[in-house]
C-alpha cells in the first residue's frame, strides 16, 4: 500500500532529456521505479536509459498506462507542462519546479481539481515509498522501508529527518514533499488524511516551517480526525520577522506565522513536538509506533 505511489506505479518523466532530468531518471530507475516513458517537446523518438521519449504526453498515454507524471520542467514552462499532463487524464502529477508564478499555480491547481488529478508541489523533491517506488530526488541512503509516514514542506529537511530515522532503524511508509508554497497542490491536511487511512502507516512525522497558517489548519485536522500519533517539527524558531527564508511561503507576517504559534497549535491538538531531528526517533520509539 503506502500512499500516492507503490510498487505498481508506472511513471512518466517530463523534461527527461535535460541534464537534471536524465541524471535523476537514472537514479530513480536504479532504485526500481518503473519509468515507462519520457516527454520532451521536439525530442520525440529519442531514448534515455532505454526509456522512449515522446513529443506529447498524449502520445505516451496512448501507448502506456501512466499512473503518475514527474516533471523536471523549468518554472516558466511548468504551467503548460502541467496542464498537458492533467488534460491527458494522469491521476498524479509531481511538480518539482521552483518559482512557478502564483497565477500559473492557481490555474494548475483548479484545473487539476476539475479533472481529478492530484498535484504534489510545486517546489517539491517528490514522493518516495521506500523499497517500492521513488518519484523523487531524495538521496537513496536516507531511505528505509517501514511504517512511519513523513510529510514536509522542505525537501532537504525531509532528507535530514529520514537520515536520522533510517540510522535509528526506523523505516518510512511514504515520504511526501508538499513544497515550499505559497500555494500547494496537496496540503499538510490532505496528506495527514491519506496517512490516517493507510494501513501501512503507524505514525506520521510532519515537518513544517514559519509562514502562513497551514500548520494551524493541520493542527485542527489532527485534533478532530487523527487517531495515529503525529510528531511535528517546526523549523524557523530563530527566524526574524518579515524576511523571506528561502521558500516563497516562509515569511513571518503576523503572530500566526511564527514557529511558536504553530508549535503551540500543534501541541494543543495533541501532536508530539520535536525541536530537532534527533528528538524524533526517541519520540517514535517511546510511542512504540
Amino acid at each position, binding site marked *: 500500500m503506502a500512499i500516492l505511489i507503490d510498487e505498481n506505479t508506472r511513471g512518466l518523466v517530463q523534461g527527461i532529456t535535460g541534464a537534471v532530468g536524465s541524471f535523476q531518471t537514472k537514479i530513480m530507475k536504479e532504485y526500481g521505479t518503473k519509468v515507462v516513458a519520457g516527454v520532451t517537446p521536439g525530442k520525440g523518438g529519442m531514448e534515455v536509459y532505454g526509456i522512449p521519449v515522446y513529443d506529447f504526453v498524449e502520445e505516451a498515454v496512448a501507448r502506456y498506462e501512466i499512473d503518475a507524471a514527474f516533471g523536471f520542467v523549468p518554472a516558466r514552462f511548468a504551467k503548460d507542462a502541467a496542464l498537458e499532463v492533467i488534460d491527458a487524464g494522469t491521476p498524479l502529477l509531481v511538480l518539482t519546479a521552483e518559482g512557478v508564478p502564483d497565477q500559473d499555480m492557481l490555474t494548475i491547481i483548479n484545473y487539476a481539481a476539475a479533472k481529478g488529478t492530484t498535484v504534489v508541489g510545486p517546489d517539491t523533491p517528490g514522493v518516495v515509498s521506500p523499497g517500492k517506488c521513488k518519484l523523487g530526488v531524495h538521496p537513496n*541512503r*536516507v531511505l528505509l522501508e517501514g511504517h512511519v509516514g513523513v510529510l514536509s514542506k*522542505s525537501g*532537504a529537511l*525531509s532528507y535530514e529527518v529520514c537520515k536520522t530515522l533510517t540510522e535509528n532503524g526506523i523505516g518510512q511508509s511514504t515520504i511526501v514533499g508538499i513544497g515550499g508554497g505559497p500555494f500547494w497542490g496537496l496540503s499538510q491536511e490532505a496528506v495527514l488524511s491519506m496517512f490516517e487511512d493507510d494501513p501501512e502507516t503507524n505514525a506520521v512525522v510532519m515537518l513544517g516551517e514559519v509562514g502562513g497558517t497551514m500548520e494551524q489548519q493541520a493542527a485542527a485536522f489532527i485534533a478532530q480526525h487523527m487517531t495515529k500519533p503525529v510528531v511535528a517539527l517546526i523549523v524557523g524558531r530563530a527566524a526574524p520577522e518579515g524576511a523571506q527564508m*528561502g521558500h516563497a511561503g516562509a515569511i513571518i507576517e503576523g503572530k500566526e506565522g511564527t514557529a511558536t504559534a504553530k508549535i503551540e497549535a500543534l501541541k494543543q491538538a495533541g501532536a508530539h513536538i520535536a525541536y530537532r531531528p534527533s528528538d524524533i526517533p526517541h519520540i517514535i520509539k517511546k510511542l512504540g509506533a
Partner: protein
Amino acid sequence: MRLLEFQAKRILAQHDIPVPKSVLLTSTTDTAKLTLPAVLKAQVPLGGRGKAGGIRVVEGAEEAAAVAAELFNLVIRGHTVQVILAEEKTEILNEIYLAVLYDKRANVPMVMASTAGGVDIEQVAKETPERIVKKHIDPFIGLQPYTIRYLARALGIDDLASFDAIVRQMFAVLRGYDATLVEINPLAVTPSEFTALDAKMVLDDKAAFRHAELFVALREEQEKLDKKELTLAEQLAKKGDMTYVLLDGDIGLIADGAGTGMLALDLVRDAGGHPANFCEMGGLADAETMCQSIEVVLANPNVKALLITLIGGLTRMDHMADGIVQYLQQHEAPVPMVIRMCGTQEKVGKATLQQAGMDTFDDLPEAVQAVVRLAKAK
C-alpha cells in the same frame, strides 16, 4: 516586488481608476509647483508610514517647503526618503477598503472589501471581522456582475457603475501584471466620484519573465528613488542566486535547502551560538552558486566561523565540493570552515574536499557543536 505608492497609482490611473492630482517632489524647491492645500507623502515601500511621520498635510507655501525638507531628512526603518508624492487634498465623505488578491486557503482569487477604510485591515480583521466582506472569484468564470453588486450593497454604495469599473480594472491589473495584491486603502467617496487615496501593489517576482521590460523598469526606478543602506554582503547577495538574510551574530551559515537552513539557524542558537546570517542556495545550485555563497557570507566582517550544511537531493555534492575548492583557490579562507556533506554524489564530493585538505562531517549536530566551539575560541 512591492511598488512605491506613486508607481502603483500610475498603473491604476492608466486603467482609468481615479487618483488625486499630484506631482513628484525630489527636492524642496519643487514645492513651488504645488496646488495648496496638499498632502505630502514619503515614498517608501513600507506599511505604517503615517505613524512614522511620513504623511503630512500642508496649507501654505512656506509650510510646504519646510515640511518637505523635514520629510527628506526622514529615515523610516532604514529607508531614507528620496521622493515625495504631493497630492491635492481631497474632500472625503467616506472611506472604503478594497483589495483584490489570492486566497491562499481556497486557491482562488478574491475581492476583499470593508466599510472600515483607511485603517490597518489586519486590525479590522482581528477586532471587527464582521466588517470585512470577502467574495471568491471562480477562475473559470472570472469576475461577474453579481459579485460586484453584492459588494456594492454590503458597502452601501449607490454609484454602482463607477464602483463596477474600479473593481473590474483592479482585477484586470491583478491578472495582467501578475500582481499578488492590488489594494486601495482608502478608496475615498468624494462629492463627485471615487478616488484612490492610497494604493499598494505587490508584483509576483516569479512572473518577471512574462513582463521583462516593465518589471526591470519599475525596479530600476525604485532603486533610484528608494535608498536603503546595505552591507557589502547584502549587496553581493542581491546579484547572486541565493537567499541571504543578515543577522547580528558571528557564525556564518550556508545550506542547500530552506528547511535545513532554518534548522541550522535553530540548532546553532540552541547550542549557544549566534548566527550571523541565513543563506540558502536553492535546489538547483551549482558550483558557481556555492562559491558565490561563501563570498557573500564571508563579506560580513562579523563572521568568525562558517558552517556549510549540505544534504543533496537535486543538489549534487560533487558540484558543491567543486564550488568550495574554487573558493579556496581564489581566496585565503579568513575563518575556519565546518562542512557537513551528505547525499547525491557524496563520495565524489568528499574525495574532492579531502584532496583539498578539507574534512567533512556526516552528522549535523556534531557539525553544529564544532562550529559553535570554533566561533567561541576566536
